[in-house]
């Protein structure tokens, strides 16, 4: 699989995403400077985490005007796979590729810790290697992950099974206590109606190697690969 990882000024999980796809999963990865206007020959695009443009003004607000975002929109509209992680999710929201906005965490603090998310829909190109209802342990690291949208939109994405991940307890209960940031309906990740654009706040790339003590996040990347018909990964697995 050919994967493009977009580098915005201020991206800081770009290398981490590159490492997972290239060094751990053995895929072909291209780093894409944000001034690029063409995305040719790629199977999937990653918008990595970080602080694009320092997250000044609003998270993702400036990055969405980067030249590359026009290409990302075109890529997505032709059905290309796009995954936005953390800041990448925030950019997808600002760019209108996914509905809703991010508010500040209710604690106002940046929060970095492991959380549990429940897979709400396992029949997608991002989750097909998970069981429906499966609980994944994946870390979050953000100050603005408090997802919000209007009730009509919320109703729509729920009805359409676009909510892929919700914050939950270790045993899979979606409770207010399990919600780390005040996110509406405990939403941790959503996809678009066409099912090819995913935004999620937790960082699967940080929990995809046994040497880091957790491989749950890997299921998401493996799902992406398998949706390209490559369930048998020729991956160079590190630390297994």
């Amino acid at each position, binding site marked *: 699989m050919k994967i493009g990882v977009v580098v915005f000024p*201020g991206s*800081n999980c770009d290398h981490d995403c590159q*490492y997972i796809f290239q060094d751990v999963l053995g895929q072909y990865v291209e780093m894409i400077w944000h001034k690029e206007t063409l995305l040719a020959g790629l199977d999937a695009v990653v918008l990595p985490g970080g602080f694009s443009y*320092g997250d000044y003004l609003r998270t993702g607000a400036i990055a969405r005007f980067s030249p590359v975002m026009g290409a990302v929109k075109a890529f997505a509209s032709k059905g290309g796979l796009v995954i936005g992680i953390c800041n990448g999710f925030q950019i997808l929201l600002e760019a209108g590729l996914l509905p809703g906005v991010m508010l500040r965490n209710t604690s106002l*603090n*940046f929060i*970095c810790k492991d959380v549990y998310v429940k897979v709400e829909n396992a029949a997608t190109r991002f989750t097909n290697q998970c069981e429906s209802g499966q609980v994944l342990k994946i870390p979050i690291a953000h100050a603005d992950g408090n997802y919000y949208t209007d009730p009509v939109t919320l109703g729509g994405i729920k009805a359409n099974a676009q909510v892929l991940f919700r914050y939950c307890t270790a045993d899979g209960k979606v409770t207010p206590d399990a919600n780390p940031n005040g996110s509406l309906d405990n939403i941790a990740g959503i996809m678009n109606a066409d099912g090819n654009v995913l935004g999620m706040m937790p960082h699967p790339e940080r929990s995809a190697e046994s040497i*880091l003590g957790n491989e749950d996040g890997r299921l998401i990347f493996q799902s992406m690969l398998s949706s390209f018909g490559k369930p048998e990964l020729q991956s160079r697995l590190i630390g297994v």
Partner: protein
Amino acid sequence: MNALVITKALLEQHKLSDDEYKKILEILGREPNWTELGMFSAMWSEHCSYKSSRIHLKKLPTTGPRVVQGPGENAGAVDIGDGLCAVFKMESHNHPSFIEPYQGAATGVGGILRDIFTMGARPIALLNSLRFGGLDNANTRHLLKGVVSGIAGYGNCMGVPTVGGEIVFNDIYALNPLVNVFCLGIAKKDKIFLGKAAGVGNPVIYFGSKTGRDGIHGATMASDSFDEQAGQKRPTVQVGDPFTEKLLLEACLELMAGDCLVGIQDMGAAGLTSSACEMASREGTGVELELADVPRREPRMTPYEIMLSESQERMLMVAKAGREDEVIKICRKWDLDVAVIGRVTDTGKVVLKEHGQVVAEIPAKALADEGPRYDRPSSPPAYQEMLQALNHDALPDVKDANAALLALLDSPTIASKRWVYEQYDHMVRTNTMVRPGSDAAVLRVKGTNKALALSVDCNGRYCLLNPYEGAKIAIAECARNLACSGAEPIGVTDCLNFGNPQRPEVMWQFVLAIEGLKDACEALNVPIVSGNVSLYNETNDLSIYPTPMIGMVGLIEEADRAVTQWFKQSGDAIILLGQTREDLGGTEYLKVVHHREQGSPPLLSLETEKAVQACTIRLIREGLVQSAHDCSDGGLAVALTECCISGSAQRLGAVVQLPLDGLRRDALLFGESQSRILLSVKAEVAERVLNVAWDAGVHAARIGTVGGDRLVIQVDGDQRAAGCKIDLELTALYDHWGLAIPRALGQD
């Protein structure tokens, strides 16, 4: 050059003594102008010139087979094999953080990061050592919140994980908090960059942010004591811009990947002045700069302001002549301001021009290296004997050990720092194998099988009671934290925070502490490769405790062998390495329960320490160890508690049986005897582990078993052992240890 009347008041403002001024006259052969006076003042400040400390720092051991770069450059570098080296350093930002905690701490992080990436290393980890007053004080709470969010704000945005640190709360730091930040980066061994202005005719290039009027006199302020008028020093506050620094980092690394760069240095304290004169001085060259070409944020800045501004996120580099366009192109790609502002010369002088007119001219060496050096008088304070006297007979032994343990767990110095490190991104760059919360942070080194372990440590109270022993213990404990993860120490950086060096008792503390660091480093065979001195940490004439903060780096050859401090499995055997003595002096127990900070710090035998650490590392390497945790603040009872409840995945209880062996009950449970490490091992290898230890000459005993949902510590012995039993539910222990800090902050 405009004439200037040098008055006493003007010199005082610039913190230059009469003798120092005389020396300036000698060097120049004339009176300095205002700009030159300012430049001397900044470069000869304590902060930049180390005038009170330099002759003592020379005693520190700084060499070894792994040392690639020792003190003197932006940071030290140590060989870790595979063609790589670890580049690291620690810095203080105490005074700025007291004035404006968020920005002070943030710009401290910014400064130490630049020190690392100017060397050609990509920063991969930050740690921080903090000292505050008691949390019952509203201003301390404000400082703590501000400092923590400042560190988070900068480090998180940069994408460099903050993987560890330590915090001590003591009223002595209430009006003089300490904010020390440590950074480590990885560089190719043959691609280390130095701050050298080599090659006459080569262009001197400025890049990064524009220059504003921020922080003028920051370097002299860092050498200021505070008084009630601290508020008036406020305009010197600098605002950090981590986004620009991130661009600066990427631009630097991209420039360094090519071959157009000759030398590079960041503009830290004393801004353009220090970078220009130090780069020239190191190489024996001169530089000539045109100030009109310096990118500026504000109109009508004078040469004085331009040269002394401490605007953040700026760099100075010397490139190969003719390669300017390449450099400019890369800087522009990263949206940075960039300008060729001068050339390297062979005059040995820093010459500054404004629109072609010379506005300052000073020999570079004189500014950078020939500042004053003082051998300041030192003598022990009159109260030293009183401090050390501790009559054990006057201290009632513990009657309710459960209550004493809970009180210790409530002490914010001992309590979990989770509230702090959850605000730091400690996982970005996906190297963090052991996150904050264990004795040392462990990071794998991508592309190798190795890992690095990092720890920062210092017990200021020990150093107050005995500066020599306290400093020794700081080194020993730091190394012990590394050993508990399975790492061999390979290098040290320090940040020596002391009071006013013009007080003989402060100099006495300083000199003894240096002796202690030296002896401990030599015994443990680990060099000091970088460091920083922060003096004048006093407010209203009250000096802080001597606090020689230590940052240590350790190497683990096989990353997957690293262990953490918490228990792993029911049924595992608990083994204590090392011996418990009657060490109550200077303990947290004495402070919390008896409200005394007195006595002699625990005895440390460097020989024993070395044996215990070597034994632990060996056992871990052989894969025999499930968990390892050293006994420090709060002694054995607190260490056992932490083994039970500090793991994030699960909590596991323990049943422990200790012999009293003629000790006091409190000394057994809460005494801080050195060179002790708690291991948990699979029951079937317990015997073997004990044998390995005894064969290595290390005292070892099986003291209990992991399991259950309580911590039970029984003490056998005579009648005197009564009341000494600890028996508490893990949930109760966690309710104190885990929540003490958020509770004190009203955020539980």
